[in-house]
């Protein structure tokens, strides 16, 4: 037991100075009187350090590619009269897309259904944008987006089954993806897509998935909706 003559208080434990006035303590310190364990400072996490390096690399690559773009002669030799080619823009857009997709899943690595759900939407929108700004040849609608939606539904169903997930942990994600997938029929009806097979598969899967949800998990889906939407 220690004593601080300035504060006139007894001090328990093993501090070297008075916790109140940082003054000298008299008496014998006793370790068994400590009521708080010493918790060492947390080491900087590996993930954090890795992230810092990648972020640094991204900025460096972006700046260097812009510099090279301007330093080297514009355009290419095959069609010299097509004007300057700002290829560095694609590098930056590509890096930005990667980061956007990465940041969306940041901090929830263990929630696989949620990652599938979020990535599906982020990648779909990015793919659509890329297609649109590179001449809109509709490869995004023809192939990528219907295939992504089909794969997501299958992946969610398989994952939920294998990992024996609780219904409320994936039902909303699967439900929303399936409902949106129905719209792939519109792509076919209004001749938005020229190659109909991926969209057709997507539509078929969505109907099967919705039928499954309604017939087997209808009650759970209703309860989950009621919970999530309570006012």
């Amino acid at each position, binding site marked *: 037991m220690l004593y601080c003559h300035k504060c*006139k208080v007894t001090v328990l434990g093993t*501090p070297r100075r008075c916790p*109140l006035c940082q003054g000298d303590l008299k008496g014998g310190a006793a370790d068994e009187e400590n009521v708080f364990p010493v918790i060492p400072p947390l080491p900087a996490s590996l993930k954090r350090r890795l992230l810092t390096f990648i972020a640094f690399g991204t900025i460096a690559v972006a700046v260097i590619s812009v510099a090279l773009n301007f330093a080297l002669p514009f355009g290419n030799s095959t069609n010299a009269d097509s004007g300057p080619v700002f290829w560095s823009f694609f590098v930056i857009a590509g890096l930005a897309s990667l980061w956007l997709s990465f940041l969306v899943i940041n901090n929830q690595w263990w*929630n696989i259904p949620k990652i599938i759900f979020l990535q599906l939407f982020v990648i779909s929108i990015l793919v659509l944008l890329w297609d649109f700004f590179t001449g809109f040849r509709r490869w995004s609608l023809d192939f990528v987006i219907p295939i992504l939606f089909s794969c997501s539904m299958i992946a969610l169903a398989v994952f939920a089954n294998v990992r024996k997930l609780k219904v409320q942990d994936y039902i909303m994600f699967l439900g929303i993806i399936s409902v949106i997938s129905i719209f792939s029929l519109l792509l076919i009806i209004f001749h938005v897509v020229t190659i109909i097979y991926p969209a057709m598969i997507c539509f078929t899967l969505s109907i099967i998935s919705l039928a499954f949800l309604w017939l087997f998990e209808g009650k759970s889906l209703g309860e989950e909706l009621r919970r999530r*939407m309570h006012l």
Partner: protein
Amino acid sequence: MYAVKWSRLDNAAKIFPPSTSKTDTKVFRFSCELYAAVDAETLQYALNTALEQFPFYRMIIRRGFFWYYFEKSDIQPVVREEYKPPCAPLYDVNRKNLLFEITWYRKRINLEIYHALSDGVGALQFLRTIVYYYLLRKHAGEIDENTRMDDNNASDEQRSRDAFDTYYARDKGKAHKLPKGASDTNVSGAYHVRGERFPESRLGVIEGHVSAAAVLQKAHEYHATLSEFLTTVLFCSLSEGMTIRDRERPVTITIPVDLRKYFSTPSTRNFFSVINVTHDFSAAGSSNQGSFDAVLTGVKAAFKALLKPEKLHDRLIQLLSLEHAFAIKVVPLFFKVPVLRNAAWKAEKEQSAGLSNIGKITMPEAMVPYIRLFNIFSSTRGPHICLCSFEDTLVISFASPLVSSDVQRSFFRTLSNCALEVEIVSNTADLGV
């Protein structure tokens, strides 16, 4: 089987998830110090048994479209030796984990709990039950097995009920307007203690143990209650570190009020309100505005005015009608979060310090010889005092994220200068400053 029970967040809890951050985790710790070292196995048994009576503590928080909600989980809590700093984060929006944790260190049993789940008085019921089962088994031969907790007749369902909801009636929604000038209305920009903070947003805790009877006697000498007396000491301690410029700002101490004292309920969920007691030190130089007696007079008047049951009831209805307003209900959570966060930030700007008095804690008489003290403290952004007493030991826990211990020194020196014997124990020596 799909029989998941769920529940809404109560009125007070709604503010916590949006305003939780690394620097203010909204976690508080209730500890019980025994005379003998804690046995982990018995503690685990006690926790499992107590949890059967408090099923609500198994809840986790999830995000809905309009509000957060509690969802029952089947996560089994495991007691551990204390392994992280006091009041470290428990709630993470992306993780599904329980909102409380039981740890032990030497002779102490610690219950850390996220504030959305319960307030101090509710958590105390849980901790007492755990300690009760722990001692009953640990000292099976010595303690009569017919020893009962005095207040154990509430059902699980009663304990899990939202007491705010019980006392809300729509026809009484037209609350009387609060009189102007009362210090529970907005005080813009109260004085804040500034300074360096502990690394890693850790919390510095300085506990003072004093004789409850001696402090009470001292308070009675001033014709004040314990809360009034210690609030005044805190006011004066805060004023000591103030510059002349600081004195232009009012000092406001936030005091949580346990509504169970005014509106009876067996609920162990949140059921509290807060009052803000303000003192203006700006005229202290010219008059005796800053003297102990002057502050005490102000504090006593404020307590009397703010703690009237009808006043607390009005405030309750006011807050509840806000929550029940349809226009607010239908805003998606995504938009509510920044608004709630802003409201919490505004409320914080009006606070200089906090003082919570949990009051006297009782245990069955046969168990008293095994328990040294109870203690509570809470995560906070500024200085925050929590009081509770067990038998004759009053524990005053001073928690603060600030490295400076000026306010604490002044506070405890005031007590020791009143010829009170103060015993200090803290974690601040090992916080790496």
